[in-house]
């Protein structure tokens, strides 16, 4: 591991405000890594997806039909766009959670567990308190989700800071602990719905639900106000990272912890704070699913949100606005995937394959450079640093 910063990172650390986003795009390498590589990654993944459809016994025309359905299901109508944004909402938050940790040199694989715990906190506030007006009850439930996620993020943070326990291991383990904990809680009288034997929680009060945005036009449009919370969070994280001292400290620790410590930054504090905020973001994502869509919790209700968050953060290159764009793309793939399954009979699991391929190509820009014979290959980002003890 080199302990020296490359000139670009150093420049950005020392003087982040001097170069505007457009100016930064102007340099060729940045343009490649921010726009061209992600675009080619998505393109290549879709091509491989097409090959997989054909290999499983469809004709070329049928496969193209499936992709047409994918397109229609994601942007083909107002309802499709509503579905895309609905799916994108939690992905933005989960992606921000991973992206923020990446910026500080931490790999948060624990979004799944943090979202689960956040969701459980939110659902409890949602069903146990009654008689509140929605402008108090809803924020209260969201805050509960934030607190739940933050607690689950705090644990790996403090372990990393105080004992050096690698966050990848602890967050993976905490994911499974959260899964089992949810299984257990859903069987207790505190959570389980009366008269049910299967693990399902009580339904939240109407006053704790996110208001829907477009049901006035069509009652099937599910997009809800959680979208604004997610976009607000993206702005907040952008502001935190690039406009505040603490954000500067985060990025400094991410670039080189030893140098940051030498410069007087408390690495311990940064690790704890970053994981706390990352957990809070994932918790908000889990809470959003409960308050905006599900209205209750079931075992594993987050459906791999945390892992999708990793994909989103990588594709968005850990930039808050990049994360928003990536989340909308993946939301579109999810929404379109439903349509593809229904009308073209191609299983939605293909979307997971395409997503995995996108991460792969984004994480290995050299591969893309080699395939498309780009000049100046972009170096792979090293985010994790072994198990380091």
């Amino acid at each position, binding site marked *: *591991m080199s*302990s020296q910063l490359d000139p670009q990172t150093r420049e950005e650390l020392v003087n982040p405000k001097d170069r505007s986003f457009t100016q930064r795009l102007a340099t060729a390498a940045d343009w490649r890594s921010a726009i061209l590589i992600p675009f080619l990654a998505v393109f290549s993944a879709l091509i491989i997806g097409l090959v*997989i459809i054909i290999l*499983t*016994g469809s004709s070329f025309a049928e496969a193209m039909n499936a992709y047409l359905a994918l397109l229609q299901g994601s942007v083909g109508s107002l309802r499709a766009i509503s579905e895309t944004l609905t799916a994108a909402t939690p992905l933005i938050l989960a992606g921000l959670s991973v992206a923020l940790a990446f910026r500080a040199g931490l*790999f948060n694989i624990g979004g799944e567990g943090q979202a689960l715990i956040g969701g459980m906190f939110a659902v409890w506030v949602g069903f146990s308190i009654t008689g509140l007006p929605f402008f108090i009850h809803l924020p209260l439930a969201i805050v509960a989700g934030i607190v739940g996620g933050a607690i689950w993020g705090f644990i790996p943070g403090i*372990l*990393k*800071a*105080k*004992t*050096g*326990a690698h966050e*990848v*291991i*602890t967050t*993976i*383990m*905490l994911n*499974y*602990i959260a899964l*089992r*904990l949810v*299984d*257990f809680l859903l*069987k207790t009288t505190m959570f389980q719905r009366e008269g049910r034997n299967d693990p399902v929680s009580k339904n939240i009060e109407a006053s704790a639900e996110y208001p829907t945005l477009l049901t006035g036009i069509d009652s099937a449009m599910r997009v809800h106000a959680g979208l604004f919370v997610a976009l607000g969070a993206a702005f907040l994280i952008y502001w935190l990272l690039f406009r505040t001292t603490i954000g500067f400290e985060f990025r400094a620790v991410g670039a*080189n*912890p*030893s140098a940051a*410590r030498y410069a007087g930054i408390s*690495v311990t504090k940064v690790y704890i704070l970053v994981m706390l905020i990352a957990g809070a973001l994932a918790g908000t994502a889990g809470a959003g699913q409960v308050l905006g869509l599900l209205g209750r919790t079931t075992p594993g209700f987050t459906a791999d949100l945390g*892992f999708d968050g*990793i*994909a989103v953060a990588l594709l968005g290159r850990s930039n808050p606005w990049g994360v928003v764009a990536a989340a909308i793309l993946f939301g579109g793939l999810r929404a379109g995937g439903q349509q593809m399954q229904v009308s073209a009979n*191609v*299983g939605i*699991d*293909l*979307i*997971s*394959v395409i*997503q*995995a391929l996108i*991460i*792969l190509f984004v*994480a*290995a820009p*050299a*591969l893309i450079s080699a395939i498309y014979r780009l000049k100046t290959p972009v*170096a*792979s*980002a*090293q*985010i*994790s*640093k*072994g*198990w*380091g*003890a």
Partner: protein
Amino acid sequence: MSDNSAAYEKSPIESYESTEKKSNVLSKSKVRRAKILGIIMLLLSAVVMFVLAPASQGIATFGLSFPDDKFQLDALAIPSTAALYVLAMVLAFLGGTQFLKGFQRKSTLILGISFVVFVISIMIWATAGQEFSLISMLVSTIARTTPIALGALSGILCERSGVVNIGIEGMLLGGAFTGVVMGSLLGGWVGLIAATITGGVLALLLAFLAINYRVDQIIIGVVINLLVLGLTSFLTSQILVGRPEWNDAPIFPAIKIPILGDIPIIGPMFFDQTVIVYAMFGLVALTTFLLFRTRWGLRTRSVGENPKAADSLGISVSKTRYLAVIYGGMVGGFAGAWFTLGTVGRFDEGMTGGAGFIGLAAMIFGGWNPIGALGAALIFGFSDSLSQKLALINTSIPTEFLAMTPYLVTIVVVAGLVGRARPPAADGQPFEKQ
């Protein structure tokens, strides 16, 4: 790795070694650790004494033989309340001594013993007034240990050479899938070979991206897991659902070894299992020998510890890593076959259910050593099997908490409370030849 906050504040390895040299002078952190361990044991004792013992009555019966075993052992009948009070006293004694004087170097062992005593207490409490087939639980412990131990072995092979492998789960799942398809079409042995090859191919992808393109190894692992989960689920829904005959493989029968298989308890556990289980023990032994007793092993380990030094001595870092990673992947794919060819004979989406991650945990808990990992896998297999079997008899025990144990134990281990596992020094770091 110098960029860790803890490295400056305290390095547990160094402080451990330095206190050993100065023998009787204990560092502050060691005293604190001893106190914490003592408090944990006293808490366990309190739980047994005040929660479990008052709540149990009647005789707890543990079956030690299957009805058709050659030599029958009488079922073990334990008066639950009295036994629990005795066990609580044992725990209190151990915890009190640890808290006041400390067992020093033996304290980790004592903590382990305390946990064993605690688990026995839980079993007695849960079985009070009922019958529990201890022997079938022990037999299934060995079965459930198999994929975990093999998964851990897969991880060890990769990481000893310096390549982090968190794609074990994907390798298991891939092996399970191709194993069942080829097994259904061409028979169990072909399925086993196909599963092994699948793991090898996935490992080749890991090695290629990690070594040639120096992609972040943890990301490759995440990608392998997602890719295999998506691909196998997709192929299941697109192909296997329409062709059930492709998803109906023969299951390897348990082979009883003459004479040894008739020994009470040990016989059914170790000498009446499927070939996959025997192969697991064989592979653990073989890999231990290869890693620590052969030239290949020395080279692999040196590449994982200090690739620069190895390179300067003329060892090809990338070739050595490729070999170790592919061997590891093949072990992982083989382990996957256990899920289909070793148990149910059919594939279900995501059927490995996190066993690969438990394998990863076993690898760390076992200190990147095959024998240690087997021991850790046995503990995890035991907790898994115990929670399954306890769920069958009607007890009030929340089995979810037992199922959590492997994960909790792993966190405790990586946090360094119970000894510290040290990974290979160059684990996860790409090597660039200069």
